[in-house]
């Protein structure tokens, strides 16, 4: 295994869902050509609103779904079309933490069994060795070891999410996929789970694909950020760069709409309120998918109606899919970006 190899490499990922019945017929373009890679030990945030396709990307990566086309490569091995049986040994290398800690844990297993199950299934440990490992994992995620005999319904939301993390990390995966892991939790509990995730990442050194709609969380935790809109990545950049100079009009709108818990800053901000709603993924707009809501559409037309903008590099590691951004010397600034970072 050579060192330059990314932990995860996703190339041109496409996932379409055919729909039939109820008068509708067609194809939901959930993910339409998404490419990114994650280096060892890197945390990549995948941000988007409902319907952007971010969870579908996660489900394709962990292979709960089979991609329509494109490739998913885990540590140099193409896993795009592997069968369930072929995937089984690879389950050691990637693990997922879900949004809802209430429905993602088996209610009939004790939390100790839940945490130990991947080790058992992978045939890595049995008996007292397994018990000791589970106890150590409980300790590592900050759960008292007597909670091992409790069932999920006896635990609080935060404790359940810790159980989910302990389970995911039991087999020391190289890649952790976290799909909105703190969205269902109260603010004070969110903080402790985010801190824990940061600590564990430092300690275990896993790569992480962190999926969320919350920009503040991404800025806090991730090294790089990809912003999705209607099945496409519209901007991809190192976190600091993205927040300091957001370039795609959608990214700017998203940043300007996020509320900051400080009345002085919050009330001084300029807000870009987007018109209309996210279009249906059954029939995405031609050309640029954001053009129907883009405040700069008059400047990008007619090109934006005809051609889809490619994701091009506008600065070191900073990629943007916007006709206006790729035009030389033009920055599609909607708001003062210094204000967004404030």
């Amino acid at each position: 295994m050579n060192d330059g190899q990314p932990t995860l490499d996703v190339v041109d990922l496409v996932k379409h869902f055919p729909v039939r019945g109820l008068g509708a017929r067609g194809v939901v373009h959930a993910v339409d050509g998404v490419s990114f890679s994650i280096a060892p030990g890197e945390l990549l945030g995948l941000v988007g609103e409902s319907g952007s396709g971010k969870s579908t990307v996660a489900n394709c990566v962990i292979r709960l779904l089979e991609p329509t086309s494109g490739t998913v490569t885990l540590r140099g091995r193409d896993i795009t079309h592997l069968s369930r049986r072929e995937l089984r040994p690879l389950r050691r290398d990637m693990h997922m933490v879900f949004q809802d800690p209430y429905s993602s844990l088996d209610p009939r297993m004790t939390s100790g069994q839940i945490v130990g199950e991947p080790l058992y299934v992978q045939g890595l440990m049995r008996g007292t060795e397994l018990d000791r490992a589970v106890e150590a994992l409980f300790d590592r995620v900050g759960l008292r070891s007597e909670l091992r005999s409790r069932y999920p319904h006896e635990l609080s939301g935060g404790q359940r999410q810790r159980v989910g993390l302990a389970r995911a990390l039991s087999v020391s995966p190289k890649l952790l996929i976290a799909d909105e892991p703190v969205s269902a939790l109260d603010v004070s509990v969110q903080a402790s789970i985010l801190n824990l995730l940061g600590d564990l990442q430092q300690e275990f050194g896993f790569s992480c694909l962190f999926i969320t709609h919350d920009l503040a969380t991404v800025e806090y935790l991730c090294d790089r950020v990809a912003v999705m809109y209607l099945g496409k990545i519209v901007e991809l950049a190192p976190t600091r760069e993205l927040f300091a100079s957001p370039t795609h009009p959608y990214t700017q709108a998203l940043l300007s709409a996020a509320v900051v818990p400080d009345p002085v800053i919050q009330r001084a901000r300029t807000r870009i309120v987007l018109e209309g709603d996210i279009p249906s993924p059954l029939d995405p707009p031609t050309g640029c998918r954001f053009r129907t809501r883009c405040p700069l559409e008059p400047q990008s037309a007619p090109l934006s109606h005809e051609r889809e903008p490619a994701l091009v590099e506008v600065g070191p590691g900073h990629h943007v899919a916007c006709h206006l951004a790729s035009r030389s010397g033009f920055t599609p600034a909607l708001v003062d970006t210094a204000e967004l970072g404030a």
Partner: protein
Amino acid sequence: MSLLTVDGLSVRFDTDDGPVHAVDRLSFSLAEREVLGVVGESGCGKSVSFMALLRLLPETAVVSGRAEFDGVDLLTIPSSRLRRVRGRQIAFVFQEPMTSLNPAFKVGRQIGEVLTRHLGLSRGEAERRTVELLDLVRIPAPDRRAREYPHQLSGGMRQRVMIAMALACAPKILIADEPTTALDVTIQAGILDLMRDIRERLGTAIVLITHNLGVVADVADRVIVMYAGRKAEEAPVGDLFAEPQHPYTNGLLGAVPRPSVEGPRARLREIPGRVPSLAELPGACAFAPRCPRADERSRSQVPELREVRPNHLVACFHPGPDLAQTG
């Protein structure tokens, strides 16, 4: 001056496991044209308090206290009288616009029903007014939208319909319970703008119940922070964020990730432990088990609210901003 004055509101549920004190002696007032933010985490009693005011809770709830509105006590007037207040002078908007609208009727008809029932408008008048209301909440093509069913509208649009319905009778008070929680941030921004607009143009007083401190920072004039059924702190919005007094408020503010300056990632503040069960309402500060400032007194006595600065109330024996603010 004060539109609504609530005094000593308590809500208790008698369950098989004993009484649960959901709200404990909550007092506050709401002025005309004011936006009052009510913040707290799940189970703090923020929603239950306002449901209790309009007597929307099941009969198992034991409600006591006074709630004076327009010269009457909402908690004791006959329900026939209350019906003229509820929906007409005090309107509610709930979190989930999907489940609050009837899927079987067109949205125009649902708004129209409010107008014909409460205001006695004719069908034609109601239809015209419905379109005006949809326009007021900035729904594009309102006459077409009025003829659509809820499932044909997006989440943000449905929430606008709910707000239009609540505004139908030009209420004096609009109570919005987590109105943006189920929505995406770009949609949330539009709804918050609308709230501001309603207050400016119609002069409606708004109670905004939320767990999101950013939302409060954006639109509220005054804020009440609730914890375990009690009011922990109350202050004008600027004071609350600039000089939070209660350790719980301090903790909440430190727990939110916020844009950081250069340098390594600072840890988020954690609040150790968990929200206490409301069944075991102790004769002590409810926050004491999780509080870094707790002492013997906090563990044996309930701190009463006191004014530390003008209009800034806190229920704590050791109030003040945290010295070491992180994040």
